[in-house]
């Protein structure tokens, strides 16, 4: 829901500012986006992408509370892979 709100806000801002292009925004340059609408839309993408990752973190917490350490480890490996994708993406 929040990411949808950011998407709509970003589109409205860009249209209101008369933007006519659709540039790419790298993850680590979101806060340096050329215009506010682009930054808000990019934050929407980041928030949406973070949702499944947060689900993995939530499962780690839930399984830790259940003392199911085998699956805490499994989920931690998945979380580590997601972290690695950010690091490897930098090249």
């Amino acid at each position, binding site marked *: 829901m929040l*990411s*949808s709100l950011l*998407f*709509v806000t*970003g*589109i409205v801002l*860009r*249209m209101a500012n008369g*933007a*006519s*292009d*659709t*540039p*790419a*925004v*790298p*993850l*680590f*340059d979101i806060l340096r986006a050329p215009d506010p*609408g*682009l930054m808000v*839309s*990019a934050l*929407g*993408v*980041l928030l*949406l*992408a973070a*949702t*499944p*990752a947060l*689900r*993995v973190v939530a*499962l780690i917490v839930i399984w830790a509370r259940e003392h*199911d350490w*085998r*699956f805490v480890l*499994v*989920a931690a*490996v*998945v979380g580590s*892979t*997601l972290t*690695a*994708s*950010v690091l*490897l*993406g*930098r*090249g």
Partner: protein
Amino acid sequence: MVLTPAWLAALFIAGVFAGGLGAIVGIGGGVVLVPLLVLVFHVHMHTAISTSLVAVVATSTAAGGTYVGSGLANMRLGMSLEVATCIGGLSGSLVALLVSGSVLAVVFSAMMLVSAVLLARGRDQEGPVAQSERDGPPPTPMERRGGLEGVYWDDGLRQAVAYRAEHFGYGSAVALFAGAVSGLLGVGGGFLKVPAMTLFMKVPIRVAAATSNFMIGVTAVASLFVYFVRGTVHPTLVAPIALGVTAGALSGTHLAKRLSSRTLRWLLAALLVLVAVQMLVRAARGGLVY
């Protein structure tokens, strides 16, 4: 690409179409969305793939709450397979960024043809699955109690049904491949994961579908972060698509109960074949360089 209200509306409609079709016929929207973006909107293949991955996350997020809340999705099974799919997704995305858009288009066309065959051979709906304790190989440490077992309520049988996922190694191997396909081509990979769980791992179809829906979001993120960091995500392109896919997926879930999916599956299969041929022809002529 020029940003206009008409262009934004067209992207939103494309998202609704992809999300709705995915919800109705069970093949994810990425299979439809990527060629739409490339052939109609003239988007570069890498950008189309990263946009589609965002759409996959949106679909998984929109529908995931329902599946998890119903108790159908087996989170332990899903997370266990995610180890392989995430590694596959990460690898697929890194490979995709090294190859040209035309090469990806050819590979994507092949995948569309496979999807068309799967769609044409699919069944309308799965009947109740009678599952009972059965003789079989002794469970591996991964499959033992607290591992990959589960219970779900079967509406058809009107009883709780117990199951145990088997052959985890085979399932993981297919999951690794599904993840690679997802990262390489921007699709969810559910059309590989669900058969892997039902055919190899003997998981009931409803559990497999619900678990897959949860998984595709995590898998897509493993690839999406690579594309996002490398700068192939265009937020203004993604925003209307993601909004449309979410609306389409939610609407499609309701429509699916009223429509016969058989005709739609055949229509979509035919469409996929036509689009696959068109992408192949354009790639061969060098017409996919935008």
